[in-house]
């Protein structure tokens, strides 16, 4: 034993131990990219593992054998400077996207590339499960989302963006028909949370809190949950049964919903406290109408109120049929109202003070309304409303001042007559709750009258009261409300379990990007992809659809979804889960702004199972040194300089075992079958054993949401991390559509099988085996064990034969 001092720790080591190994054993961080336990040495070491040994200076810890007592520093300024320089060199040679461009703008933070990847693999249920990790209302969002992601989709540079949201809708609808993967719902943990408001924000919070074991009650003024999904957004865009099923899915996890309970009328926060709720989430949305401020505005009807009443079924349709309607404003509320009224055969005009390009709703939505015959009048503002028999509206054109402020041009004033005029300028959160009780009165407000919260923790000025959704940020979108509700749920969980509030680490600084703007993008990279036309949803004929409230857009078929999913360029790195390089950059705080923006090497796709992107290679040569078959030709010249040239080629000797992919510390080598970017700490490593040959390789099966993502070798005898091609790549069978899922039975082998219950099947088996034993004796029966089933199962099978049927007629595939 030798004493080794690393930083401030005294450690024991054996003579000859490698310094790096000693540090690793003790959990002391030393970066390394090229070290392999098998003793192989790279021609050009990465040099990152440098440390300072007192009296000796800088040494590479991966090749330093401890022979005497030494004192080591791993975090010396000199050491850090060396590492930084090496890393900067690597950064400047790196060309890739850590994360897909579509990922960043999605407020829900969905793993878009991943769920599209699952669709491309035909695994729709796993796709939905991945979405539902962060979004419990996929069928709704899949219909109404304004799609923050699609405008930045890289595919748009090749031809047209991937139909991301339509794909989400597809898997959500598919699973509504065909069932979802089961969720693990934990038992209640005894802590209670009240949620006021059962819209997307409140429902999402309930979903995530319940999945963490909290007992959740939602209080809502309406009879049914869903908020604006149920009562605001009309059925032709979002069918009521879709909302209903989606809401039920959440409530069925064991979330209590109390409808018809109005905060401020039926209960106050004090009541909730007294009832034992440890935390409350306020998510009552934005219901205060925005006003424009013109003469007679109060005479106009409220569009929101109309829509809500209409949603509740409380509108007398006849009173609104075949009218001439003016709608002021171009909010979501305005457009939905316009389209509802077109279905009541009204003549509808939407009046908006700004230009078409400035509307806050997606232009796509305007297109649907236009095709249904809604008339849009832009750059026109109301001046005055007078009520006579009908309504008399004075309007004027607008322009923008130099400061881009809206200016009305009074000289352009003109008149219009309507049967009815609606205000639809959008909604704001209301502050009327201040009057609901003592605790309410204490809740602080922002200067603009909205409730004040800590944007990190989502807490109001009362630490046990949280707020989310439109109620906090004003009228926005469903996905934003969902994201806000999910965040609040996490915070509430931490609060109730007295855990520190987790702060999402900001890692953008370390996200490599191939380029953000089209101008700067390397077109050589885009040339790697063949154009392929985007799939569009079928839209029902306008003349037909304005006659009913049935859904306007028809979802993808399986085939369309599959085709569309295959348009995805898989931008985000599919090796990010194993990327040591990125980890080291984060630890050493080396940003990646100076990364290469030009593609140097074409992506190699000729290997049947492995994709090679040398643009991401750090030239550690681990692949070469791990391959048991010497099947990689690899060379690097001018390593670490801008003139670096890497040559990588698989040779004929390759047997597709995949050892090289698993050991590659970046996304330079990736498995073609893995289409889901994931992180190892958000998936479960399960110990497994290969089910094929008698070697019995130890494997790690990586599982997420009840689905296997990939299989890697496990460092145990006999295989010590290695496997053959079957071990790493032969696991998909478990998902095959051919799996037997129900007991089958028939009286005679000339009949067809009938699916039956286990009860019936086992009764039948028992009855017949006994009958035959009684008639012909035990020697007429035989039982076969398997070379695929476990020891325990084989043991029970022969025990069944010997103890119950009293026969030794037991055999197994020992002869195959």
């Amino acid at each position, binding site marked *: 034993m030798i004493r080794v001092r690393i930083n401030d720790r005294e450690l024991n080591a054996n003579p000859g131990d490698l310094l790096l190994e000693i540090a690793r054993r003790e959990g002391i961080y030393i970066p390394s990219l090229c070290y392999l336990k098998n003793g192989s040495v790279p021609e050009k070491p990465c040099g990152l593992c440098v440390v300072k040994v007192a009296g000796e200076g800088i040494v590479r810890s991966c090749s330093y054998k401890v022979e005497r007592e030494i004192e080591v520093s791993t975090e010396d300024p000199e050491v850090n400077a060396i590492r930084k320089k090496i890393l900067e060199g690597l950064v400047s040679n790196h060309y890739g996207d850590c994360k897909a461009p579509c990922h960043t703008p999605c407020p829900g933070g969905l793993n878009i590339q991943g769920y599209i990847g699952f669709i491309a693999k035909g695994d729709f249920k796993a796709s939905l499960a991945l979405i539902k990790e962060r979004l419990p209302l996929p069928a709704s969002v899949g219909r109404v989302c304004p799609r923050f992601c699609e405008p930045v989709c890289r595919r748009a540079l090749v031809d047209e963006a991937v139909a991301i949201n339509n794909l989400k809708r597809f898997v959500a609808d598919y699973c509504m028909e065909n069932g979802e993967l089961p969720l693990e719902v934990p038992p209640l943990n005894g802590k209670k949370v009240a949620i006021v408001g059962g819209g997307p924000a409140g429902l999402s919070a309930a979903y995530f809190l319940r999945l963490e074991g909290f007992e959740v009650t939602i209080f809502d003024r309406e009879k049914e949950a869903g908020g604006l999904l149920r009562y605001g957004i009309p059925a032709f865009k979002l069918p009521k049964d879709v909302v209903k099923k989606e809401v039920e899915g959440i409530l069925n996890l064991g979330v209590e919903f109390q409808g018809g309970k109005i905060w401020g009328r039926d209960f106050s926060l004090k009541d909730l406290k007294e009832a034992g709720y440890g935390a409350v989430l306020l998510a009552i949305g934005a219901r205060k109408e925005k006003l424009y401020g013109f003469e007679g505005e109060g005479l106009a009807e409220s569009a929101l109120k109309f829509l809500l009443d209409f949603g509740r079924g409380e509108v007398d349709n006849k009173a609104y049929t075949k009218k001439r309607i003016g709608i002021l404003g171009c909010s979501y509320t305005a457009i939905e109202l316009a389209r509802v009224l077109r279905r009541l055969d009204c003549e509808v005009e939407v009046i908006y003070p700004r230009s078409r390009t400035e509307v806050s709703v997606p232009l796509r939505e305007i297109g649907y309304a236009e095709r249904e015959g809604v008339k849009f009048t832009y750059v026109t503002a109301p001046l005055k409303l007078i009520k006579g028999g009908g309504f008399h509206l004075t309007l004027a054109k607008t322009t923008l001042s130099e400061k881009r402020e809206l200016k009305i041009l009074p000289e352009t004033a003109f008149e219009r007559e309507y049967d009815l005029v609606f205000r639809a300028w959008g909604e704001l959160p209301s502050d009327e709750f201040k009057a609901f009780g003592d605790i309410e009165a204490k809740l602080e407000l922002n200067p603009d009258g909205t409730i004040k919260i800590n944007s990190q923790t989502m807490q109001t000025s009362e630490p046990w009261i949280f707020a989310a959704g439109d109620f906090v940020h004003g009228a926005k979108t469903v996905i934003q409300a969902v994201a806000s509700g999910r965040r609040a749920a996490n915070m509430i969980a931490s609060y109730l379990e007295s855990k520190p509030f987790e702060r999402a680490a900001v890692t953008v600084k370390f996200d490599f990007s191939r380029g953000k703007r089209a101008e700067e993008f390397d077109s050589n990279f885009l040339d790697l992809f063949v154009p392929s036309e985007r799939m569009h949803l079928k839209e029902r004929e306008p003349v037909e659809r304005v006659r009913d409230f049935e859904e306007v857009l028809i979802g993808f078929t399986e085939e369309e979804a599959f085709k569309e999913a295959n348009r995805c360029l898989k931008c985000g790195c599919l090796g990010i889960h194993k990327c040591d390089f990125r980890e080291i950059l984060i630890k050493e705080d080396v940003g990646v702004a100076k990364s290469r923006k030009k593609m140097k090497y074409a992506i190699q796709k000729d290997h049947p199972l492995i994709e090679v992107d040398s643009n991401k290679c750090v030239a550690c040569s681990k692949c070469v040194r791990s391959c048991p078959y010497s099947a990689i030709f690899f060379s690097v010249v001018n390593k670490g300089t801008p003139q670096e040239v890497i040559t990588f080629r698989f040779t004929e000797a390759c047997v597709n075992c995949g050892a090289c992919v698993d050991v590659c510390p970046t996304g330079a080598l990736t498995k073609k079958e893995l289409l889901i970017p994931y992180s190892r700490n958000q998936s479960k490593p399960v110990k497994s054993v290969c089910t094929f040959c008698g070697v*019995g390789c130890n494997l790690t099966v990586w599982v997420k949401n009840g689905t296997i993502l990939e299989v890697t070798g496990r460092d145990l005898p006999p295989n010590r991390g290695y496997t053959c091609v079957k071990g790493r790549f032969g696991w998909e069978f478990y998902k095959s559509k051919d799996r037997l899922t129900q007991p089958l039975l028939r009286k005679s082998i000339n009949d067809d099988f009938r699916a039956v219950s286990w009860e019936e099947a086992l009764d039948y088996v028992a009855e017949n085996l006994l009958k035959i034993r009684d008639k012909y004796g035990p020697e007429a029966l035989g039982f076969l064990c398997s070379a695929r089933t476990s020891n325990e199962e084989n043991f029970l099978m022969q025990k069944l034969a010997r103890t119950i049927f009293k*026969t030794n007629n037991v055999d197994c595939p020992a002869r195959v």
Partner: protein
Amino acid sequence: MGTGAACVHFEEILNAELLFLTGTNSTDAHPIVAQKISRALDRGCKLIVADPRRIAFADRANVYLPLRPGSNVPLLNGIAHVIVREGLYNKEFVENYVDNFEAYQHYILSEWDLGRVSRYTGIKPYLIEQAAIMYATSKRALILWGLGLSEHRSGSYGAMAAANLATLCGFWGKPGCGAMPLRGQNNVQGACDMGGLPYVLPGYQSYKDDGVRMRFKEVWKEDLPVVDGKTLPTMLRDALAGKFKALYAMGYDVAMSHGNLGEVWRALSNLEFLVVQDIFMPLSGKYAHVVLPSACVYEKSGTYTNGERRVQFFEKAVNPPGDAKPDWLIITELARKLGFSWNYTSSSEVALEIGKVWQGWGGINHSRLKERGIQWPCLDEDHPGTSILFTTGFPKGKVHLALAKHVPPLEEPNEAFTFTLVTVRNLEHYNIGSMTRRSSSLLNLYPEPLVDINPDDAERLGILEGAKVRVWNNRGEVFYRARLDKRVPKGLVFTDFHFVDALTNLLVSPGLDELMETPEYKVSVVNIEPV
């Protein structure tokens, strides 16, 4: 010995000074073993390969013995002949630990002169001498054999003949020594260990032994039958004869994997009741009355035992599809239906029971296996398991030199059928392929059935690379694409049985190993022609 289990672990390959591979193409069938062999050779280990096909390792062999299919016993006895004749055997070991040497010596010297051996094997005597001398004079030699040795009428004798070489030279109980069967499938070792055999109870204990039966009765509370059990081939024969009526097959597709399929199918359709329990509809499903859906390896927990007796735990990763259940649960529920109060609630409870009836598993339980596997025998909780058997002696006191008899293959090429068909496995698939064909990566690598043929034979018959060919005999016909491979000797063809649309086993000879009744998968006569 006597347990069909490896006496050492795979790692010992690295300690050997000489490796003797016979009837194993581990490159394809046991790839990780092949990696270890490669590494041993890189370090200078010597190599003898005996295989009819010039397998990849033959290129690295010091002596390559291209024997005729089915002549393993003559070859091994020939090698023994040289060792005995030249007095190269380990006299000290033989004196102290071996019995039956006199009889064996007489048998080997009188019956297995190299002239005769050479006639059977087609190998020149000097090569056999070289191999024998190299083997016997090495310090640590390990014989590895595979199904190429066992799937013959004389399969069991082949194994004896191989073990005899190790015995003669005292290559037992030491690092880098021994004779090691490479078990084919992932838990075939475990199935045998667990008593999935007609002749023995779990742990290879004999039900003929009163003491053993008593011990089981203490745990199982039931009397055990003493009537000899039937092997599967016997069951099938009896089914054809109308004497055997019901079969319950768990995870074993007899109708695809057994040799001489035509007869198997007739036997199965003659049953009154057939239950199959599987993850996919097996071919046997065609003859079944009840099909029970079971969970696959990722959907349950349990243990497998690999070819070096290493008991390894696998953990449940995902849920089974639909109503499918783990096999242990199905059997447990069936037992309850049959009026027995089995109440296992997990496979780990079953594991504990195994340890109660078999001392070799005494110290094995799931909680100990969470990190790493244990090689049985493992006598108690503190026992580390046993990586090398026989370091302290032999179970029955002495090693017996059995007189390994030669039984020629049932079929020999003749005027009507000029080719010999040998079945093998490919790297990308496994056995009947039900799982590997349904894993897209593997299927893409090897999408259709191929038959390997010598290029000269192919040219003579007008068969081009990739051409469709018909392979047939009296038992049936099967279609493949041809792959011309100069590693295949003339007169032989090699193929697998991974594909449903190429049921190679239809063609397999009805020959059975005289002792074990293993079908003679390795020698069947056929013809081949382009279509």
